[in-house]
């Protein structure tokens, strides 16, 4: 099966049963076709310049964002290609999409397109994590406070990156079946990263920490991750009642309850303040911010290729004072099956025109 069919199944699992209506601060699926072809050509140029297509995955793994973010770039570039009215270069889309798909297949071989999970650690890595984490027993209050920490950190990510590239800074790995001290658990690893993007926002909106990892051991709950980690779904149990052990690591150091509660306070206020600022922006300012957020996610790749990661003047000109189309994603309509998804997102068109 070609990777795009597997991708399609994974991404449909995210959208199936849902409708499109909640993108903030703008509908990027409609916005991106205005300019994405230019950015993708830049990405393809960086890939060629670095010779990544001929390199081993381990040689460029660090240049590509976390798996959920990689999947969202794929989803966006496919839709942008199909709905772009400019003279797009199919070869550039092929270069970029094949490299991103290869990254996912090599990094997450068990479920690369996240149909049900996001397993990106091998058995050896999992054993090391479970064996070395400083686990604490979790009370109901601990679990609720971890939920509040996730809410605060996740909301800050939504401020820093909006719905635009949320997954760049909010990833969830797992679920992994593990054994610890003669008992069976399900391990989830929530990872908030890139919390200090000084190239995107003034220092006053920045978190005091850059990286938060929350390791959680659960019992009697079923977890699923569909396409993107921040949309983790639980069933057959409550995340609060099922949490048995946890460990919170901030910038590489384990933290206790006092620091956790301070972080909840700090991150929730930063999230509120940054989003209030976003709400004050006019549409042209928001469009420019979205360009920066989108381009920033592949900054490491551009840096490695010694190219500017920022949106080019041509990209800025393409979107400035241009209305955002509203013509292809049916807002408010529930996506009922994979065929609906493939039609709306142009999966078959992309396969025929770009990949075949």
């Amino acid at each position: 099966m070609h990777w795009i069919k597997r991708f399609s199944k994974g991404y449909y699992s995210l959208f199936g049963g849902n409708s499109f209506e909640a993108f903030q601060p703008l509908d990027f699926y409609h916005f991106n076709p205005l300019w994405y072809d230019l950015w993708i050509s830049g990405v393809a140029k960086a890939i060629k310049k670095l010779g990544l297509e001929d390199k081993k995955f381990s040689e460029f793994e660090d240049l590509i964002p976390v798996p959920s973010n990689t999947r969202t770039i794929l989803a966006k570039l496919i839709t942008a290609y199909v709905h772009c009215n400019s003279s797009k270069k199919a070869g550039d889309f092929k270069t970029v999409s094949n490299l991103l798909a290869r990254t996912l297949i090599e990094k997450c071989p068990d479920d690369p397109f996240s149909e049900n999970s996001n397993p990106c650690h091998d058995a050896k890595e999992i054993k090391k994590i479970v064996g070395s984490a400083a686990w604490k027993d979790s009370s109901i209050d601990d679990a609720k406070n971890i939920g509040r920490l996730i809410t605060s950190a996740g909301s800050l990510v939504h401020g820093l990156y909006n719905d635009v590239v949320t997954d760049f800074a909010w990833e969830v790995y797992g679920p992994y079946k593990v054994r610890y001290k003669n008992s069976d658990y399900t391990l989830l690893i929530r990872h908030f990263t890139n919390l200090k993007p000084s190239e995107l926002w003034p220092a006053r909106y920045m978190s005091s920490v850059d990286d938060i990892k929350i390791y959680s051991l659960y019992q009697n709950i079923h977890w699923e991750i569909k396409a993107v980690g921040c949309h983790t779904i639980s069933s057959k149990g409550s995340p609060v009642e099922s949490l048995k052990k946890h460990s919170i690591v901030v910038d590489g150091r384990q933290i206790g309850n006092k620091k956790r509660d301070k972080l909840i306070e700090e991150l929730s206020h930063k999230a509120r303040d940054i989003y209030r600022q976003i709400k004050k922006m006019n549409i042209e300012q928001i469009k420019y911010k979205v360009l920066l957020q989108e381009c920033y996610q592949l900054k490491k790749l551009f840096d490695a290729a010694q190219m500017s990661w920022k949106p080019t003047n041509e990209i800025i000109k393409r979107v400035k004072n241009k209305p955002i189309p509203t013509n292809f994603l049916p807002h408010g309509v529930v996506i009922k099956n994979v065929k609906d998804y493939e039609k709306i997102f142009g999966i078959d068109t992309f396969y025929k025109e770009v990949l075949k």
Partner: protein
Amino acid sequence: MGLLLIYLIYMKKQKKLILKGIAASSGNAQGKAWIIMPNGNLADFKEGDILVTTLTDPTMVTVMIKASAIVTDIGGITSHPAILSREMGIPAVVGTKKATKVIKNGTSILVDGDKGEIYALD
């Protein structure tokens, strides 16, 4: 815990079903409803109140972490208010289409996150 459950079941039988939506995070909670819009006034929201909004956004996070339940007009079970409510262990009903119009600010409501139902208690 058992007494609270019996009380909530009793209250639910006594009161009026006013709204249905998608059951997004299980559990029952009752409290004072506050309709909060983006950039709205958050000062009156107290620990245990119920957040009612069109769709949660980060301007509301300081009240989300105090709320005993969340009700929204739009969103599905994978929307962020749904996911975050489950993580915090509070009930949520999303996709009601008209919660911000039907629910009166400051009134007591009961949110049934298992059935996706909202009851007026006043």
